[in-house]
């Protein structure tokens, strides 16, 4: 109970985590971030800028969007002509531009200029001026002049090199050429669509007189830009080019900002502004009429479709460019390039071919004979080995026709399906003639096996069971089966199944074995085993062959035609198995008994945790670069049956389970007992066994009378009842699960996809049902046994055996089943123990055998009744009702008891609080604060 003064000390004991936030100054609000819609753009003077969408994406221009200034509109350059003649000032575009345009992000940024070293202009005017001023103002006049003398001329290296090679400024680079007489300009009427006119040659009107024998330096031209088109603009779109917008500006007041090569050279060639009525600046309809544009006649010209080409014509539009918007150099040389297809730049030393290369000659395919049919027949191959008469007969049976006959026969006498088989084609998917064909191959085989099993029993019943030892029995079974299987065994040549393809020798032996089986040889096993093998190995292999043969009988050709073989066979015959298995329990058991814990009882594995799990646990991933999760797995050969076996006699080849089952049952009397994980200790084992013995005894009685179809096969071999096929199948699956060392679940799933699922779900249901029950164990176990009845045929079977043989030989799964009934391992205690319910003391594993024996017969009688009536479910319900009733009864009693208890205890503990209804808020508060209780 909390101490009275606990609340003071509580806060001291609180632990703080992390850094506390600084307390807010009082009266101050937390600054909220400005939302996007309220963020504004301001200019240098803090005025709001509004977006206009004018020329250059500009914000407000001029003085409050007027052309004037604060004083109103006044041309700044106005000078009264009376006092002084106004200087004729040449206005550049910059005079009409806003400050923003000249800033870093405007259309004519001033800030970024090339440095001296790389500028091809020799002198920087500003610097020159600065130096000039410095020279005047410096203390020693003339020093700058000295600097000029000393300082090297600032010429870039490239220019210097070019000069040494004879280049002069304004010239192009390359060998000197003769200048051709100029062609006429292209038709000026050609409308140009797009943003800007292609740059027209400033040299067009330049020179009239060209002496014939004078060579000139090549023109300084921009090289063809062969960069691929990467944008999504239209072909030929160039955007607004500042160099063209400000073409030719290089006045004294407006130092040229754009030191682009071509522009510069044109400047050097002469100031072109005065040359002719030349359009300057921005042109093109997309931009309307610019400020400097004179023509404004067709601003409102309507676009008509007639201005566009609607037909793809062969003839070029007139400029020989086929849409190529290269610089004009090639455009002008029209005549020369008449027949040239190649429009790119021709490399030095190469010339375009005058003759076109010879056309390739094409050869026609040969004429086919008139009676040619484009079909190829494969001749069937018959190996020499197959020549024994029996096999041939089998072939005839399986295919309906002998291939050698087929060769001799006229092909026209064959029907479609025969031809199909000959050609190895797949059958058309049509309606199947019988229901059987809808069954899977596995099911069919099972049905077959069931039939055979029945036959087999008739034969084996004559054999005295007790006198059989392992080998002789299995051998006897083999003999029987070889006969029983007869022609249904796999024919190695006809089926493409090769179970031992990995080991060719073994495969060969297998095929021999099959053949000899076909021929009905009795001593099949001896005739074709490897002489180098030991007796044991031989036995193993014989068994393996035998199972493989049964397993892979050639199925119905109609069915097999519907399936195809997997392309990747790796996965089919491999299965993942944990690399490290826990060691044998035998040694550990003894170690535990000797209390030698430590190395003997410990297994250590490499285990890969999931990455996310490591993250959640705040632990670095120990195997950060591995993709494995869990225990590392290895692939093992699936068909090598013995990978999964620890028991010598049981096999995992599953379809042959009925056979195995019989074998196991007969073998088991001589089998040494292997301790399983279910054997808790000797003492317990005995008890368990005694229980199970008893159960089995009782059940066997019941079974003999009622469970004819299931149990006949195993318990009484003299009877010749034909079991129902599906039951037998079920049974086989049940038996399947009884193997002591289980292979991985995947294998089971792969084999018994449907049946095992049913099984497991039913067992789950069982456990659920248990959970429903009031957990007093006697009625509980009773009822669960009832619940289990429909599918405990296997258990019954085993129990029957246990009766006839020693109790030790109960296979481990029986115990498992029993434990399943008793809810997997340790149970939960019953709800209440009170004196009145003492007779319901749980029948635990430790309870006396006698007690069990007293109760069990009763149970069995009940069971008996139930079974006879064949109304399991109804009965079950009834039972449960009864139990529930009982439970209620019991609960009432226990409540009484507990009530008395509480009365007693409440006397002594009078200080119990009665605060039971706490608000959730209060609860939360308490939990959050976690007061440390003071005692």
């Amino acid at each position, binding site marked *: 109970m909390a101490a009275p003064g606990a609340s003071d000390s509580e806060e001291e004991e609180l632990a703080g985590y992390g850094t506390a936030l600084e307390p807010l100054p009082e009266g101050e609000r937390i600054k909220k971030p400005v939302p996007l819609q309220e963020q504004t753009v301001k200019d240098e003077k803090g005025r709001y800028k509004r977006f206009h969408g004018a020329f250059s994406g500009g914000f407000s221009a001029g003085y409050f969007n007027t052309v004037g200034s604060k004083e109103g509109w006044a041309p700044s350059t106005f000078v009264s002509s009376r006092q002084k003649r106004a200087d004729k000032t040449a206005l550049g575009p910059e005079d009409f531009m806003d400050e923003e345009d000249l800033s870093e992000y405007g259309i004519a940024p001033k800030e970024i200029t090339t440095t001296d070293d790389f500028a091809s202009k020799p002198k920087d005017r500003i610097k020159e001026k600065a130096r000039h001023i410095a020279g005047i103002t410096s203390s020693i006049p003339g020093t700058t002049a000295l600097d000029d003398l000393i300082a090297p001329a600032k010429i870039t290296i490239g220019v210097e090199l070019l000069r040494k090679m004879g280049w002069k400024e304004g010239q192009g680079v390359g060998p000197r050429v003769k200048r051709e007489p100029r062609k006429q300009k292209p038709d000026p009427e050609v409308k140009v669509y797009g943003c800007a006119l292609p740059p027209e040659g400033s040299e067009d009107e330049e020179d009239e007189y060209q002496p014939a024998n004078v060579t000139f330096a090549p023109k300084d031209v921009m090289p063809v830009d062969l960069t691929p088109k990467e944008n999504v603009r239209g072909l030929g779109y160039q955007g607004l080019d500042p160099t063209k917008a400000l073409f030719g500006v290089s006045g004294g007041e407006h130092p040229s900002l754009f030191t682009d090569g071509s522009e510069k050279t044109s400047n050097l060639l002469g100031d072109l502004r005065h040359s002719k009525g030349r359009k300057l600046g921005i042109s093109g309809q997309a931009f309307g009429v610019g400020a400097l544009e004179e023509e404004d006649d067709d601003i409102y010209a309507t676009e008509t479709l007639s201005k566009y080409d609607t037909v793809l014509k062969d003839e070029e539009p007139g400029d020989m460019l086929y849409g190529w918007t290269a610089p004009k150099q090639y455009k002008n040389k029209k005549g020369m390039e008449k027949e040239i297809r190649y429009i790119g730049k021709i490399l030095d030393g190469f010339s375009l071919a005058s003759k076109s290369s010879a056309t390739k000659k094409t050869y026609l395919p040969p004429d086919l004979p008139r009676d040619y049919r484009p079909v190829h027949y494969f001749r069937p191959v018959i190996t020499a080995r197959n020549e024994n008469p029996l096999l041939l007969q089998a072939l005839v049976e399986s295919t309906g026709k002998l291939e050698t006959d087929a060769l001799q026969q006229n092909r026209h006498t064959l029907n479609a399906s025969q031809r199909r088989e000959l050609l190895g084609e797949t059958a058309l998917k049509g309606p199947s003639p019988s229901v059987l064909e809808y069954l899977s191959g596995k099911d069919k085989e099972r049905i077959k096996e069931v039939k055979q099993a029945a036959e087999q029993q008739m034969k084996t019943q004559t054999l005295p069971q007790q006198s059989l030892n392992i080998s002789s029995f299995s051998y006897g079974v083999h003999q029987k089966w070889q006969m029983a299987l007869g022609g249904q065994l796999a024919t190695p040549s006809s089926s493409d199944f090769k179970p031992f393809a990995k080991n060719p020798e073994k495969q060969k032996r297998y095929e021999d074995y099959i053949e000899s089986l076909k021929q009905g040889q009795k001593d099949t096993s001896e005739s074709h085993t490897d002489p180098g093998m030991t007796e044991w190995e031989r036995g193993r292999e014989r068994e393996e062959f035998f199972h493989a043969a049964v397993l892979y009988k050639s199925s119905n050709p109609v069915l097999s035609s519907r399936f195809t073989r997997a392309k990747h066979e790796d996965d089919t015959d491999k299965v993942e198995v944990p690399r490290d298995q826990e060691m044998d329990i035998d040694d550990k058991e003894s*170690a535990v008994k000797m209390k030698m*814990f430590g190395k003997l*009882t410990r297994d*250590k594995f490499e285990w890969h945790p*999931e990455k996310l799990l490591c993250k959640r646990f705040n632990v670095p991933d120990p195997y950060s670069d591995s993709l494995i999760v869990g225990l590392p797995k290895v692939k093992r050969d699936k068909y090598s049956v013995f990978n999964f076996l620890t028991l010598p006699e049981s096999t995992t080849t599953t379809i042959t389970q009925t056979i195995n089952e019989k074998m196991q049952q007969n073998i088991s009397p001589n089998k040494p007992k292997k301790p399983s994980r279910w054997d808790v200790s000797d003492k317990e084992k005995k008890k368990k066994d005694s229980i199970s013995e008893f159960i089995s005894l009782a059940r066997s009685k019941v079974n003999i009378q009622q469970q004819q179809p299931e149990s006949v096969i195993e318990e009484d071999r003299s009877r010749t009842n034909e079991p129902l096929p599906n039951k037998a199948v079920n049974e086989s699956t049940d038996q399947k699960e009884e193997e002591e060392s289980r292979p991985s679940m995947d294998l089971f799933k792969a084999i018994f996809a449907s049946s095992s699922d049913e099984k497991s779900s039913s067992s789950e249901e069982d456990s659920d049902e248990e959970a429903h029950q009031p957990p007093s164990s006697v009625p509980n176990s009773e009822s669960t046994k009832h619940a289990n009845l429909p599918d405990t045929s296997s258990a019954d079977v085993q129990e029957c055996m246990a009766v006839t043989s020693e109790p030790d030989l109960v296979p481990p799964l029986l115990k498992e089943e029993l434990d399943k009934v008793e809810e997997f391992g340790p*149970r*939960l205690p019953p709800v209440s123990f009170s004196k009145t319910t003492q007779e319901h003391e749980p029948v635990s594993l430790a309870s006396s055998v006698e007690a069990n024996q007293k109760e069990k017969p009763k149970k069995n009688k009940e069971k008996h009744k139930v079974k006879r009536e064949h109304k399991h479910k109804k009965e079950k319900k009834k039972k449960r009702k009864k139990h529930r009733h009982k439970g209620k009864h019991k609960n009432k009693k226990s409540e009484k008891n507990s009530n008395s208890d509480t009365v007693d205890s409440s006397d002594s503990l009078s200080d119990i609080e009665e605060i039971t209804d706490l608000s959730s808020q209060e609860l939360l508060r308490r939990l959050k604060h976690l007061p440390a209780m003071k*005692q």
Partner: protein
Amino acid sequence: MAFPEPKPKKPELPKRLVQNLECKQGAVRAVRFNVDGNYCLTCGSDKSLKLWNPHKGTLLKTYSGHGYEVLDAAGSFDNSQLCSCGADKTVVLWDVASGQVIRKFRGHAGKVNCVQFNEEATVILSGSIDSSVRCWDCRSRRPDPIQILDEAKDGVSSLKVSDYEILSGSVDGRVRRYDLRAGELYSDYVGSPVTSVCFSKDGQCTLAASLDSTLRLLDKDTGELLGEYTGHKNTAYKLDCCLSEKDTHVTSCSEDGKVYFWDLVEGSLMLSLPVGRGVVQSLSFHPSKPGLLTATEGRVQFWREESHVVEEQPPGC
């Protein structure tokens, strides 16, 4: 000069009954202290989970939402969440204050025997009779477990989690310790179905109770047997065991209605505390004080040491 340290008091065993909680939820399948020992959870066979203050004996909240009986529960480190598991094959994550189900994790194929939060309550680990331990992610909305530890050959009966280890006891008679930091799995064979496992407070040892009525203290690193504790009876039921708050004693339930205390080092039986007539199914030791909760039948009892003084709760506090 500093005073010499007072001589440490001899550890006392909780043998004085201070509270008796009638849970009224059928059989109490498990009783668990919360992280600081101020509250406890009881798992009832009537599908309900209850939160108590065992010191005062008050019922604080009932959490209902399970389909069958609740078998185990745990509280998160910050007491904001609970997790529970039950025979309905689900693991449920609860909000403590509102009593609402935050999430239900489905995926186990059978009854879920035990459940634990990891240290930061980001992962719930649950062990089931389907022989798997599943790690459920509380952070994401993923319905599948992060990882399934299916190495056990039989049902997982008990589970404990440290900051980097997962300890699981299985009916196949093995105690498995998954070391996430080292990426290794240690499997110790005990020989008998393990019903309960726990770490010692110092993290050096593991205690395993098995159905041969024996508790074994194993060295965590080597798997060597450090101690064996017998005298109680545990042959059929899944009963809990634990270590006392200072690792001085080993405590176990018993089927004869008593709780047994052994000295950890000597292995001698110190006390057998009669609790009730029926099987003492579950117990939980206070994390820091000598206090013990025992669950038998439908009743939970809270035991303290002899010297413990039950203080009167002042009114209005």
